[in-house]
């Protein structure tokens, strides 16, 4: 009686696994005795087990079959291993294909990943109990943690789990020794894929579950055709741009952002997802004092980039404070706050904005043209989330055309640029990488982060001769988050 909200027996479709059907076709082709992958017997101490394949054979077969380059065949082979269709016989925790004489074997179809069946925790619990019986309590660290966790929340099923584990263990012993070795390897490989130990990358991270099968053909009802009609009508009405212009824009974007893409250029000092070292994230936090060189360079790409980076925005705000024209940025931030804030506070915020920025003789009056002012004031009679949009766009363009250029030439920016750090690339050895993987810890809880921000806000509010610029902007900046839930 596992809780199932939908008694679906397979109707939940896991989106990124729609490719599994194609992978299975590839696997079956590989089995052909004449045109498939060559297999060789694996010689162990006591016995010989057939059907071992080498990594280089797999990669060569893929390259020949699909006429692709060796690198691509290598990537495809790694995908087969990451999904669990082929498992390595040595170094079973690294799910990659090594294009040398490293040995692999095909996984039995029972243990293939299936789009329809989620991998059940009950089965994992039974497997861990079996392993416990076999290894007399000596399990790996992550397995021990999982075992304890499962024992706690599956306590009502635990008797069954232990009984079934014992029976499966005894049933397994009825088989011949080489078969038993093969089965143990298969089962272990299955669980390495579906419950990866720390440091293993498997392909089973599939995101949200969907209620619609992405492989299924859609039925052609009148609704289907109506949606096609709406879509085509909208695309006709869309403003069109010459392809030379749009392609030029894409090329320009690619050239500028090429060095900043973590897939195309190495992330300095190192990509935390790859090396498990979080220096990169720590150096690029929102409230850091000295930003990195790459980050500062991104601010020069466009004004939007500068504003969307909180550290960049702080720098810009400092510059504006020196020029005594901080009200534009403050107004822009207030508009953002209104757009993204909670509905309950909207009326109040809109009135506040009017009193502070738009009314005649307001303390921080912004300079927008008469037409926009008229439209905005009229809209404020019945305020909604986007009532300040026109004014916000106007101010944004004003800042972009005027202040942004001056900011980039200002001593504030030049100083930040000079102080920015360019960290060296990490060079980790294999053992250091493993140590990093072991030391992985979750980051600060968001509850604590929210508390810190609240304290900072309180501090800003009570600090000395109130600098309206700072307070308004900091308040509207932080007010974007959802207020803490009521007790």
């Amino acid at each position: 009686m596992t809780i199932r909200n939908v008694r679906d027996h397979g109707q939940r479709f896991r989106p990124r696994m729609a490719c599994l059907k194609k992978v299975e076709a590839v696997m079956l082709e590989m089995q052909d005795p004449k045109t498939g992958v060559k297999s060789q017997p694996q010689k162990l101490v006591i016995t010989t087990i057939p059907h071992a394949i080498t990594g280089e054979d797999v990669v060569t077969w893929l390259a020949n079959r699909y006429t692709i380059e060796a690198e691509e065949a290598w990537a495809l082979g790694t995908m087969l291993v990451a999904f669990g269709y082929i498992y390595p016989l040595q170094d079973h925790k690294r799910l990659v294909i090594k294009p040398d004489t490293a040995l692999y074997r095909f996984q039995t179809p029972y243990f293939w990943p299936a789009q329809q069946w989620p991998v059940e925790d009950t089965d994992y619990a039974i497997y861990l109990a079996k392993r416990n019986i076999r290894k007399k309590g000596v399990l790996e660290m992550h397995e021990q943690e999982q075992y304890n966790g499962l024992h706690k929340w599956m306590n009502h099923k635990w008797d069954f789990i232990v009984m079934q584990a014992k029976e499966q263990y005894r049933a397994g012993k009825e088989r011949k020794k080489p078969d038993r070795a093969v089965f143990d390897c298969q089962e272990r490989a299955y669980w390495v894929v579906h419950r990866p130990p720390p440091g293993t990358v498997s392909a089973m991270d599939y995101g949200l579950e969907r209620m619609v099968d992405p492989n299924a053909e859609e039925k052609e009802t009148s609704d289907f055709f109506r949606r096609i009609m709406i879509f085509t009508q909208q695309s006709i009405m869309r403003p069109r741009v010459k392809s030379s212009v749009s392609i030029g824009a894409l090329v320009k974007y690619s050239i500028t952002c090429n060095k900043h893409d973590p897939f195309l250029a190495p992330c300095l000092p190192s990509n935390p997802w790859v090396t498990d070292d979080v220096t990169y994230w720590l150096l690029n936090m929102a409230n850091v004092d000295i930003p990195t060189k790459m980050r500062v360079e991104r601010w020069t790409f466009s004004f939007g980039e500068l504003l969307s980076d909180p550290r960049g925005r702080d720098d810009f705000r400092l510059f504006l404070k020196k020029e005594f024209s901080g009200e534009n940025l403050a107004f822009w931030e207030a508009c953002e706050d209104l757009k993204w804030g909670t509905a309950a506070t909207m009326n109040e915020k809109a009135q506040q904005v009017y009193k502070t920025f738009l009314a005649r003789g307001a303390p921080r009056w912004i300079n927008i043209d008469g037409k926009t002012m008229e439209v905005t004031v009229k809209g404020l009679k019945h305020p909604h989330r986007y009532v300040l949009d026109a004014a916000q766009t106007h101010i944004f363009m004003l800042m972009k055309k005027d202040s942004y250029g001056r900011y980039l030439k200002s001593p504030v920016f030049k100083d930040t640029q000079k102080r920015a750090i360019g960290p060296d690339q990490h060079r980790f050895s294999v053992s250091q990488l493993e140590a990093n993987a072991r030391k992985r810890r979750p980051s600060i809880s968001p509850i604590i982060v929210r508390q810190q921000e609240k304290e900072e806000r309180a501090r800003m509010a009570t600090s000395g001769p109130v600098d309206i610029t700072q307070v308004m902007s900091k308040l509207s900046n932080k007010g974007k988050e959802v207020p803490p839930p009521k007790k």
Partner: protein
Amino acid sequence: MNRWRRSVDEIQARKRQVTECERALEALCKVTACFQQMAISIGSNSDGSFLREEMDETRALAHRICTGLHRRLVPLLTERATEPGQEDRLQVERLWVIFLTGLENLQQDLHKASDLIDRFPLKQRNDRRALVNTGASDGVIGVSARAASVQTPWLAVEVEQNPDLKTHITQIDALVKEMLQKVSIPFWAVEATQEAWVEGAQSQDTAHDQDETLEEMMVVSQDDQMSGCCQPLNCKLGCMFCLST
């Protein structure tokens, strides 16, 4: 006087039924474990009509045990909670939870097996070429013998028709639904009698020691690979030398 004796008889009858159910549950676990061992070979190079027949027989066995258990457990639980014989209510609830979990487990294995059998039909000769070379050889004889050795009190007595795979699945679905509707007990209130980690600490017989060498067998070849020899041939010799030191 008569009333007293009747309630004693009732208590004894109930106790007998409960022990029957316990033994049947153990049998069910055994049979499902054997079924799983066989299902693992579907689609692999050791698949064949023999395997499928053995699977059918094991499945039929499981079906008989399940229906028998269902017939006995439901009245045990739906009886009025009167004093005589209800001290074992906790135990019966525990058995109920184990039975349900076992059924779900079996249900899952049946779904998987059915799916795999559809994908790997053995009807034509060239279908055999599509079987996956997993390195296993035929080895289910011992497993099926183990399954067949299961004893439950009602096995010989209650003979029912053996359903085929698809009907079996729908029957189990219906069974589980009906069970959940008829008996409402809070499953999560049932506590396990087994402590954590106990099963690993129990003393094992000598056959267990042989298992260790299996694991080590795999590890030895791994060590060799890491020591840098590139030829599998050399590894073979190295293996032998490694083990002798």
